[in-house]
């Protein structure tokens, strides 16, 4: 083995080890949280703290959490809101990104900058105006009311535009000569080839909407319309610590995100800067 190859090998090992270490740091709180869901209150206040629960057969936390909060109903609500919101968001993002990537029109750059500028607005500043809009549209306490503000997302538009720009325009022009219209090009060529980025954006957006707390709380008024994150707040206690119950709720709420990730992980783009761009 030549010296250079050996250096490459060691370099590769070093990178892998660093990535593994970073991965462990990131996954640790999640693993600790899930393990915590199987601990009794006494185990939780044990000093020094323990990592592994005494027994994974200890399911009282889950039973108590279920007894206090209708997690199935809340989970269904979250599922509907996250699904509608994500699908609509991707639909609008695809159409807008297509226009920004393949059409030439006046003020294109200014309009694109305007889209980007919305990313700078903190969500909290829009809370009251969005509430006012949704209330006037008479959408309070409905799935649409919860999902509508997530229908348009600048992050998704931006990511898709960047991805579409990597397609040679000539491909589209060539198709056009052969009678392939815009929509057909989009549906049969562009989207299938953009599957990795679409799937990544789908997962990222779904998880964000699934985790939303304040907005769904604001626009719903009845108990049966609540989402799963509100359910978790329902089992927290102000005056006391009951992390064991809360972590049982959190573990339950993580399930769909895990499932989605496992099902779609083959399609998730590898070199995506997903972690750095959420929202």
């Amino acid at each position, binding site marked *: 083995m030549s010296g250079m190859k050996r250096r490459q090998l060691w370099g590769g090992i070093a990178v892998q080890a660093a990535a593994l270490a970073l991965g462990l740091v990131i996954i640790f709180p999640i693993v600790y949280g899930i393990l915590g869901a199987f601990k009794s209150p006494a185990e939780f206040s044990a000093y020094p703290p323990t990592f592994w629960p005494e027994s994974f057969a200890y399911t009282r936390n889950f039973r108590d959490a279920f007894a206090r909060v209708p997690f199935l109903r809340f989970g269904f609500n979250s599922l509907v809101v996250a699904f509608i919101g994500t699908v609509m968001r991707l639909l609008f993002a695809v159409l807008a990104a297509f226009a920004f990537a393949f059409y030439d029109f006046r003020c294109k750059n200014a309009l694109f900058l305007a889209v980007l500028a919305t990313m700078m607005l903190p969500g909290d500043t829009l809370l*009251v105006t969005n509430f*006012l809009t949704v209330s006037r549209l008479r959408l309070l306490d*409905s799935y649409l009311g919860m999902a509508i503000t997530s229908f348009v997302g600048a992050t998704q538009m931006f990511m898709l535009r960047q991805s579409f720009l990597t397609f040679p325009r000539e491909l589209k022009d060539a198709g056009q000569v052969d009678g392939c219209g815009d929509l057909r090009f989009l549906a049969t060529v562009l989207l299938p080839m953009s599957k990795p980025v679409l799937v990544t954006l789908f997962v990222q957006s779904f998880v964000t909407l699934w985790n939303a707390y304040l907005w769904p*709380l*604001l626009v719903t008024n*009845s108990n049966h319309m609540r989402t799963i994150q509100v359910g978790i*707040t329902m089992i927290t206690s*102000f*005056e*006391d610590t009951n992390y064991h119950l809360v972590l049982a709720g959190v573990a339950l709420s993580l399930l769909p995100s895990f499932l989605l990730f496992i099902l779609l992980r083959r399609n998730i783009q590898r070199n995506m800067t997903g972690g750095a761009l959420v929202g």
Partner: protein
Amino acid sequence: MLKRMLPLLLVAAMALTPGAYAQEPAQPVSLLFWHSMSDEAGVLVDKFVTQFNATIGKDRQISVEAVFQGQYSDATTKLNSILTAEDYAQLPDVMNLDATGKVAYFNSGRAWTLDDALAADPGYDISQILPITLSNWEFSGVRLGMPFAASTTIMFYNKTMLDEAGAMAPETFQDIISLSEKLPEKSAGGLDVLAYSVVPNTPTLANWLGQLGSYVVNNKNGSEAMATGLECLENGALETFLTEWKAMYDAGALTNAAGTTDQFVAGQLAVLTTSSSNVTSLLEKIGGAFELGAGFYPRVNAQASDGATVSGSCVVMFDKQDEARKAAAWELVKYLASPEVQAEFAAATGYVPVNTAAQEMAEYKALVAGTPQYAVAGEQLAITPADMKSVTVGPAKDFYYAIQDNIAMMLDEGLSVAETVEMMADDLQGLLYQYEQANK
């Protein structure tokens, strides 16, 4: 193609489902009650409302729907959104508020305050409600709401350790000094034993200056209007407190760190001051390792009065411009403050009953007989001066840390009391001034 249309169809279907704009029935009244009670307290609130609907509600044709609205601060955010949007139809009839929602409610223009309700129902005996908890929900001289959940800070001590050392439960800072002289150096587990370990912050300073008859900031600790300056300088209260505090530290009785429940449970700390509602969890954690003593919050000196500020939440009513609804809301509020409800609530959660008559109820008596530590908070609240108020300041976080930093610096770097008073005055007044200038 149909598959691609599916999301659109779904959305269209969703838009057609009716929202929250149900018509109000003319005669029977249905009320909306927003609360922030979670965990066991949340289960109890649902139970109370069901009971109300089945009894008083049935007689008077009132049906109440209790809806959890997230934590207090979330519920306040929701209230603020509705008020800013002037979408008053969305307001509930009765709402559970903590200090974060006080000003929003007062300025809502839709408040139907406790004082309003009492004027409409002169027969109600408000004297049964603990005065200190009532005054906690007063703003600009108006009693806004009915206290519902109340707790206060009390002192817990390791009775076994004190008994072995032949010491009495301390009442004043001076007593803590005497106690520390009697304590062993090491615990059974080989840990250093500390007598008392606290770094004062905004709420604790409000308690100790309150015992000396002083507010921390003006406008009654910011409860009447925005606080613009300190009110503990000229009356010497801050100086008195700091002098006693430094004496405790210099005598080795005080550790300049936030003593934790874990340290206390591990037998490393003799005295712990924390919320009265922690009795159950402390007993659970100690698990019989030692006897848990409970006493009044320690006093600055022999001249200081007993007590500490109240925390918790109240229930307020909104003016939905319908007399029948207002009367119905008042029935619910009276019910929530009734001795029966308050006794059951206290027995299950560890809050102090706000209705003094609750102490006569069998349920509360059984609680106190089984766990005498529970009685302390109620007894302390009964003798706490009614004008002791918690602090409301704009730059809350910076204020909190400035107090901690200044006092920590006095102890760590050996500054004199006079120097510390001057430094704190500069820091804290500066924060208030900056906030005032920025929010003109």
